């Protein structure tokens, strides 16, 4: 009897292990399939429609039905909006991470933390809607401009990357050993001196990861950006004129581009570009973390 049950338990163990390994393998298969399918569909523009990769990357003429696929305006738009978001949201996020890790009394942290979690949960389309109905008219009034453009997109993205940067930089700062704080205080450093000259350098690789994941979030963000950018396929002359990003242009055009057309292939190429950027960021994170260990 005991032997039978033990056998059954061992059989269960083997079956369970099979399921566990299969489930884990699904992650590997999934990312491999995504890379493969986007690599094939994203390069069809070049090998099937014989469009030059140089003209795609650096050309600024975009006319989906007219066979012109210069994606430079969208690449510039994506980079500028993301850059703005990181310049504003990055330092702000790290500062608030410092606040939670070093300054906030327990009760304040308990009151503020759920707010940050809600900020993560708000759908990007709702951010976009708030941006479109609140921020764009505000910018229009303040700068006497149309209102939509890279400034609006940059501000919306700054807000959207905050929760990511805040929580990751807080985590990075919290694992700095207390001995460093004590040593710094014992040397007579003020609290701010400890934070800025001891803790931030000590947590630098973790903070770098926080910023990089903020970049990843910003560059892939689609609808919040699409709603406030104004969607003009030109290289923007200023932050206040309508522009477009890789993500927003895909959403704008995908419904119109017929299956199998060069137009649709060009949009897949833009998606492939986004995927490659995301993969580069992952590699950067690996490098930042390796430096630590």
């Amino acid at each position: 009897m005991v032997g039978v049950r033990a056998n059954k338990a061992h059989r269960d163990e083997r079956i369970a292990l099979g399921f566990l390994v299969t489930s884990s393998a699904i992650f590997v298969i999934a990312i491999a399939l995504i890379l493969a399918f986007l690599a094939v569909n994203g390069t069809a523009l070049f090998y099937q429609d014989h469009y030059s990769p140089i003209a795609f990357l650096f050309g600024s003429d975009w006319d989906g039905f007219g066979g012109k696929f210069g994606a430079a305006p969208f690449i510039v738009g994506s980079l500028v909006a993301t850059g703005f978001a990181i310049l504003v949201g990055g330092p702000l996020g790290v500062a608030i991470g410092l606040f939670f890790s070093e300054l906030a009394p327990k009760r304040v942290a308990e009151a503020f933390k759920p707010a940050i979690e809600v900020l993560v949960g708000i759908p990007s389309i709702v951010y976009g809607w708030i941006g479109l109905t609140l921020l764009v008219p505000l910018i229009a009034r303040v700068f006497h401009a149309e209102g939509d453009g890279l400034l609006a997109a940059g501000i919306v993205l700054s807000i959207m990357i905050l929760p990511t940067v805040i929580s990751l930089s807080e985590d990075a700062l919290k694992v700095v050993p207390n001995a460093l704080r004590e040593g710094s205080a014992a040397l007579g450093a003020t609290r701010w001196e400890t934070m800025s000259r001891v803790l931030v350098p000590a947590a630098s690789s973790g903070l770098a990861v926080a910023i990089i994941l903020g970049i990843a979030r910003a560059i892939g963000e689609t609808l919040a950006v699409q709603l406030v950018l104004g969607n003009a396929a030109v290289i923007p002359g200023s932050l206040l004129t309508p522009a477009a990003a890789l993500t927003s242009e895909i959403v704008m055009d995908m419904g119109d581009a017929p299956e199998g057309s060069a137009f649709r292939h060009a949009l897949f190429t833009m998606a492939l570009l986004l995927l490659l950027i995301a993969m580069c960021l992952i590699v950067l994170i690996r490098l930042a973390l390796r430096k630590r260990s």
Partner: protein
Amino acid sequence: MASVVAAKPAAAPLSGDRARSRRIVDRIATASLWTAASAVVAMLIAFVIYVFVQGYSAISWHFLTGYPQSAVAGGGVGPEIFNSFYILLLTLCFTLPIAVLAGVFLQEYAGPGRFRDLVQFSAESLATVPSIVMGLFGLIVFVQLFHWHFTALGGALTLTLLNLPAMMRVTQESLAGVPNTYREASMALGATKWQSVLRAILPSAIGPLTTGVVLVSGRIFGETAALIFTAGSSVSFGASAYDFNPFHTAETLAVHLYSTQREALVPDATQIANGSALVLLVMVLLFNVVARIVGRQLTQRFTGKAS
């Protein structure tokens, strides 16, 4: 945690002008950090109030349950709300088993090694794929290759890929919170590893696990970019717009907010968008509150301690 140690900067033997200016810088920095954090929280509260003020007049029973209109005013979002929940449910059916099993594998079974690194790296990569790119992958596979057209199932499978990493992370983190003594006690009683996982480890992690799952569900509920070209931006007009067929097109509430501002011909498009934004926001808040309450209750029931 550190505030105890470094709480009294003025206590150090500082004197003279230099010391005073250092102290002033410290004060300014402290005040700035407080301001920054408070400003973000105030901004969130302002957002919530703004969306409520804009949207509340659009909300009515008719709006919440009625069918959308394509040309006249007075359309509702009933089918869209239904589709959002339906796609969420389908997504959870695929995501939960895979992500929890993978999380258990990485946390409880896998020793350091090449396979574990590979899975971990794949999960991290999967987590950074932008949702619009995932949407196009879904379009290529489910719409173009399988010829399903826009379907609830295609949308749910795309969202599954998008949310597997987050769910696995949630599983790993809740398992990491289970004290090792549980594992040792269970094994000492003669349980196999799988028996320990099933009867000791998972039950004691159920509280944080549920909290995490509900929070991720909130994100699935509001996802838009991955669904526009997989589940579609129109509702099914079969026998009923409340349609359980996973092979029918299924516009969710978030996608509806997008398509309303993009191409709606109805005269009350702004009203409908305001109302949809409010319903989405209320749902997100609800998911957050439910996550906390249910997580706490389950922790209490399964481990007997308050979290």
